[in-house]
């Protein structure tokens, strides 16, 4: 029986036709990192018992939208989460049942992450020790049943092309209901992951709350909604897993109020190419958000540099975490069509708190033109660009805007 130390959720700010959608600078990896950070930051700030998340011993990322099938997502995932590059990572393709299976079967210290693009959202679960059962705040899950069936209403192969049989009645009758029947639950589920609101209501007697996503992360959103005694079914096409939840998980949400997706225009253009040696040299500082700290005098440099600007030492430097908040020193809004880009977009130079480090970053989460000099915000992992097929991750400014920003229209 696994225990849950906490649950984290993340929803991108953008909404289109009533569903959360990713911005141009987000993918399943940045979504998963955002959920993982919501959880770990929450555990650190909400606990006096040293529950700081530093004892994550492995990571399992479940998604059907992994950015790379080849080339690897793990390094960026660990760096974005601030975890050691010695941490084992499992990149798993799967939906709602796979996430529930991962949670119930994971060893203590496993961070299970799930991310979906359509609708967009992500979740994180940190697994606790089995002997923690009964400890304050610990929550355990007990599996009630599992069935795996084949009803590929939607399918996607190696070419990435999605096929849709488009028959919701067939899906419900011979997928959802057949799988639920096979589980032979004593009572109808009270939480249903993997289904939209209407069928979820039908199979739960109207009790299951509506969840923002349909894929793997919906299992985590269901756990986030759970109270003691709930029965959770996670289903996908012809498969389902059921578990009962003993306890009420601690939940840390990063779920901003939705904003209409900013209108942008894209201009066709050449791929701007990538220098992989330059990418590799910059990776740790960029994705971990760490500056070079002079080994001789401690002066910070972002990006790291060989010769210290303060003392002139060239004897070496070590990476040192940077503050993740700051104030806009100057900013620009790019309106001119830029080949290969979505316009408009904003760039800002941010003065990081409590350091003399400034950084040039993209602005995320608000329409172009919404941020101004003097505004504050935090630095979050985003997809800067995809160059030559390589996701180029870095940090972007997410402004702390209390009001709905009045950005410039596209």
């Amino acid at each position, binding site marked *: 029986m696994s225990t849950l130390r906490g649950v984290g959720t993340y929803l991108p700010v953008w909404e289109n036709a009533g569903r959360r959608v990713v911005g141009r600078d987000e993918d399943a990896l940045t979504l998963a990192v955002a959920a993982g950070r919501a959880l770990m930051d929450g555990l650190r700030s909400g606990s006096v018992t040293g529950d700081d998340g530093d004892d994550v011993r492995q990571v399992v990322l479940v998604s059907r939208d992994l950015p790379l099938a080849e080339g690897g997502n793990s390094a960026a995932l660990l760096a974005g989460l601030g975890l050691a590059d010695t941490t084992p990572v499992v990149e798993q393709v799967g939906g709602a049942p796979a996430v529930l299976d991962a949670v119930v079967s994971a060893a203590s210290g496993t961070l299970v992450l799930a991310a979906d693009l359509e609708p967009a959202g992500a979740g994180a679960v940190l697994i606790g020790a089995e002997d923690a059962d009964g400890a304050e705040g610990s929550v355990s899950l007990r599996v009630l049943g599992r069935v795996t069936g084949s009803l590929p209403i939607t399918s996607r192969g190696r070419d990435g092309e999605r096929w849709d049989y488009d028959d919701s009645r067939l899906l419900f009758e011979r997928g959802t209901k057949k799988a639920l029947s096979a589980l032979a639950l004593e009572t109808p589920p009270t939480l249903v992951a993997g289904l939209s609101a209407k069928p979820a209501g039908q199979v739960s007697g109207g009790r299951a709350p509506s969840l923002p996503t349909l894929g793997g992360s919906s299992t985590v959103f269901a756990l986030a909604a759970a109270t003691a005694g709930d029965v959770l079914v996670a289903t996908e096409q012809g498969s389902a897993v059921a578990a009962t939840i003993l306890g009420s998980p601690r939940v840390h949400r990063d779920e901003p109020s939705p904003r209409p997706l900013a209108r942008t225009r894209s*201009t066709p*253009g*050449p791929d*701007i190419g*990538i*220098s992989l040696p*330059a*990418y590799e*040299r*910059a990776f740790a500082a*960029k994705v971990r958000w760490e500056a070079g700290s002079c080994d001789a005098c401690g002066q910070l440099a*972002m*990006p790291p540099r060989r010769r210290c600007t303060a003392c002139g030492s060239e004897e070496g430097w070590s990476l040192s975490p940077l503050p993740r908040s700051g104030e806009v*020193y*100057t*900013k*620009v*809004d*790019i*309106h*001119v069509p*830029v*080949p*290969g*880009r979505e316009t408009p*977009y904003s*760039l800002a*130079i941010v003065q990081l708190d409590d350091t003399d480090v*400034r*950084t*040039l*970053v*993209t602005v995320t989460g608000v329409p172009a*033109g919404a941020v101004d*000099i003097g505004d504050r915000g935090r630095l979050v992992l985003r997809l*800067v*660009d995809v*160059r030559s097929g390589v996701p*180029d991750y*870095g940090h972007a400014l997410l402004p702390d805007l209390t009001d709905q920003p009045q950005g*410039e229209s596209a």
Partner: protein
Amino acid sequence: MRRVAIVGAGMTPFKEHFDLGIKDLVPMAVSEMAGSVDKGLDRADIQAAWFGELTTTDGFPAGILADSCDLMDIPVTRVENACATGNDAVRNATYAVASGAFDVVLVVGADKVRESSSRSTFWEWAKLTRDVAWDYPVGLVAPANFALHAARYLHESPATREHMAMVAVKNHKHAVPNPKAQLRYEITVEQVLSAPMVVAPFGLLDCTPQSDGAAALLVVSEDVVEQYTDHPVWVRGVGLGLDRVMHQHKADMTSFPATVKAARAAYAMAGIGPQDIDLAEVHDCFSAVELISYEDLGFTDRFGAAAYVASGATTVGGARPVNASGGLKAKGHPPGATGVAQCVELFEQLRGHASNQVDGATTALAHNIGGPTAVSAVTVLSSEKG
């Protein structure tokens, strides 16, 4: 060091020369320069050449100059120093002559921006001046480099977009009589303010056009100057200054320290100060850059540029006309040629036959900033040997 003078100057029109390659533009500028030498030029007198070119379109730049101009028996050195290339080529040639190594040298600047599609130019040119891991992928396109400065400058100083527009309006007006200028029409402040936004705070009319062109100067020592003219223009001072390359490392973005350093060096060499400058060609790739440069060059006090441009001081007829040629904004901006062409303009001004003549000027200044905003070159010219 020996005194150094310019005795000939010429340039092609600045425009989209789709019909001419770099191997056409370079010899055209050199020939016009040769034709301007009062007492004539025997090309066999040319002992060395410096060629300012930021990018290359048809191969190896120094070889292109030598080959296209049939100057096959002299050393040619390519100078590349971002948008300060032109005035840095002048600087290198000046030192070569001042040192006594040569008596007669050629300076050419050229670039052919419109040789690739406007779409691909964006990234091709951006890659020349960006950190490829940190700044290139975030989409720091050319106008954004300067707009980061302009936004902060507008935030701290009394200047507004109207003051930026005054620069554009002035320089367009100045370009009308200049047959070499690319944009020979007047615009209004209202048109500048209502133009489509490129990179806020720069609208379309705050920005230089994309240009092709070439310019050439003949630079000689005081020992031989009388063989070429009785009206030389003396190179009184040259200076080059640098700044941190990445914008996030520039402490005060309301000023260009590179310009301050370059100007300080050029003024010191000339033994004069900004109060002695009668007219100037100032790097106005974007309107606000001219405002900030007024202050960095010492023409006005810190944050005094808004009042200074509004006073009309920098309009032809004012106390210190700036960019009587139309500037980069309206004359055009083929980067390697730009600084050399500024000196072509000032050569004509100081000899009294410019197309938009400023009367009574004896001492003038040319200024480039680029890199982006990490390098500046300043040249001080005078009709007085000093």
